C-alpha cells in the first residue's frame, strides 16, 4: 500500500473541444484519496463536460488523465424520466449488476439491490416504477446505481438541482455518509455555494479554464467568485457568507 506512483486522480492540461468551441482549456488539478472536491462555476462553463471527460463520455482533444481509482461511479444530471417507462427500481438497478448482455434474472441481484438502497435511505423505493418517482427520489436511485459496484470515486453532476429545502437537507446527510462512513472520494458539481463551503476539502472554480482552485475559504471569497461569474452587483459585492446564498439560488 506504500506510496502509489499513480495519483488517485490527476488531470493535466486537459482540453475538450466541440467543433470550434473550446469548452475546456488547459484544466489541471489533482484529487487525493478521501477528499471531497466541489466544482463550481457559471452555467455553460464546462463543469459537466469535465465530469464526462473523466468517464470517457466526451472525447478529449489533448491532455492526460491519470488515475489510480479503478472504479468510478457517475451520476448524471437528470431530474426524471418519462412516466411511460415501466421499469421498477429493482429492475433498473439490476441492469448495473448483470455483466452479461442477456439480462433477465432478478433473483440473485435483488438482495444486493435492496442492501444498497437501504444503505442510502431509499429502501422503500425498491418496488416503485422509476417513471413515477419525484426528482429527489430519482436522484437517489441514480446514486444507488452508481454505487452498486462499490466505486472508489463518485462523480456527481448537480445532484441537488430541483430538490426543495427538506430534500436538500437529507441529501447533505447522504453525502456526509458516503464520504465519511463509506470512505468514497467525491467530485461534485454544485451551484449551492453554501453546501460547497460546508462539505468540501477542495474547490475548483471553472469557466472554460480553471479560474480558481484551493480551499473553500480561499475560492469562495467574493473577489474570486466575481472573477468567474462576472460582477454581480448586490450578490457578490456583499461581504462574506451572505454572498453565497443568493448565488446558490440564482439558477
Amino acid at each position, binding site marked *: 500500500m506504500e506510496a502509489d506512483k499513480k495519483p488517485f486522480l490527476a488531470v493535466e492540461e486537459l482540453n475538450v473541444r466541440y467543433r470550434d468551441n473550446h469548452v475546456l482549456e488547459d484544466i489541471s488539478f489533482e484529487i487525493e484519496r478521501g477528499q471531497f472536491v466541489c466544482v463550481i462555476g457559471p452555467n455553460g462553463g464546462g463543469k459537466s463536460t469535465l465530469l464526462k471527460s473523466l468517464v470517457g463520455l466526451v472525447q478529449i482533444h489533448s491532455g492526460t488523465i491519470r488515475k489510480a481509482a479503478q472504479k468510478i461511479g457517475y451520476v448524471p444530471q437528470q431530474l426524471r424520466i418519462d412516466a411511460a417507462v*415501466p*421499469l421498477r427500481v429493482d429492475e433498473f438497478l439490476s*441492469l448495473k449488476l448483470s455483466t452479461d448482455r442477456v*439480462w433477465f434474472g432478478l433473483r440473485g441481484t435483488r438482495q444486493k439491490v435492496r442492501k444498497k438502497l437501504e444503505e442510502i435511505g431509499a429502501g422503500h423505493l425498491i418496488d416503485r416504477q422509476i417513471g*413515477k418517482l*419525484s426528482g429527489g427520489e430519482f436522484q437517489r436511485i441514480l446514486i444507488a446505481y452508481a454505487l452498486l459496484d462499490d466505486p472508489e470515486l463518485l462523480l456527481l453532476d448537480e445532484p441537488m438541482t430541483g430538490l426543495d429545502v427538506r430534500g436538500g437537507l437529507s441529501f447533505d446527510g447522504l453525502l456526509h455518509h458516503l464520504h465519511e462512513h463509506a470512505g468514497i472520494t467525491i467530485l461534485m458539481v454544485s451551484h449551492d455555494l453554501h453546501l460547497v463551503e460546508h462539505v468540501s476539502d477542495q474547490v475548483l472554480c471553472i469557466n472554460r479554464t480553471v479560474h480558481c482552485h484551493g480551499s473553500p475559504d480561499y475560492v469562495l471569497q467574493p473577489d474570486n467568485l466575481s472573477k468567474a461569474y462576472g460582477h454581480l452587483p448586490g450578490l457578490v459585492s456583499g461581504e462574506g457568507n451572505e454572498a453565497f446564498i443568493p448565488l446558490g439560488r440564482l439558477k
Partner: protein
Amino acid sequence: MWEILQTPQLERAFLIAIIAGPMMALLGTFITLRGMAFFSDAISHAALTGVGLGVALRLTNDVYGTGMQFVLIVFCCLVALTMAWLFERTSLRADTVIAFSYSGAVALGVILISQMKGYQSLEGVLFGEILFASDLDVWIILGLSVVVLVFLLSNLRALLLCVVQEDLARIAGVNIRRLNYLFVLLIALVVALLLQQLGALLISGLIVIPAAASRVVSTSFRQMLIMAAVFGLFAGIIGIATSAQFDLPTGPTIVLANVAFLVAAMMLGAILGRAKSGRVNTSPLDRV
C-alpha cells in the same frame, strides 16, 4: 366453428398470428418505450412506394410473390436507414423527419401505383391478405421471429439503459449508434416481411397497440413484456377466428381485437389506478 380451422389457408393464418403476434408485441414494447411508434408507421406507408417501384421497374410482376418481398426488404431498409441518418445528422426533430418521409413516400407511391395496370390488386397491400400466405411465408415469418427475439434478448440491457439514460448506457459499453441502426433495420425487416399479410395501413397498429395495452396494466418491465406478448397472441387468434366466423376482412378484424384489448386494459388500469391512487400520481405536474 372448428371446421373452418380445417382449411389450409386459415391454418396458416392462425400459425402466422401465433408466431408473429407476440413477436410484434415484444418489438412494439421497445418501439413505444423509445418513442418510435410513428417510425414503424412511416416505414409501412413508405413501403407502398416500394410496391410501386417493384412493379414500375418490372422487378417483379406479382404484388404478393417472393420477388416483391425482396424488393420490399431492400426498400424498407433503405427508408429506415435514411430516416435514422436524418435523425442523427440534422437538427430536425424526429417527428418532423418522420412526417416528411412518410408523406413524401406515400405521394410517390400513389403516383407510381396509379400508373399500374392492375390497380385494384392494391387493396391487399393496404390492408393485408393473411389468407393468401403460403407455407414458405410461414417459414419466413418463423425465421424472422427468431431473429427479432434473439436481437431483443441479447440487447435487452443495452436497450433499457438507453431508454433510461444514454450516458449510463455509454458508460456500460453500449455502442448506441450501432444499436440504433440495428434497431431501425429490424423494424424495417418486420414491416417488409409482414406487409403482404397484415397491410401497410394496419401493421404498425399491430406492433404498437399490444404494447400500449400492456403498459396500462403493468407495474414492471417484466410484466409489460409478458402482457404485451399475451395480448398480441390472443388478439391475433381472436381476430382471425372472428373474421372467419362472420366473413369480415381479416387484417382489420385483428386490429379491432387489439383495440378491444387496449380499451379493456385502460378500464382495468383506471380501476387499479384508483384503488392505489394514494401512491401513484399520473399527472407529471403532480410529481414535483
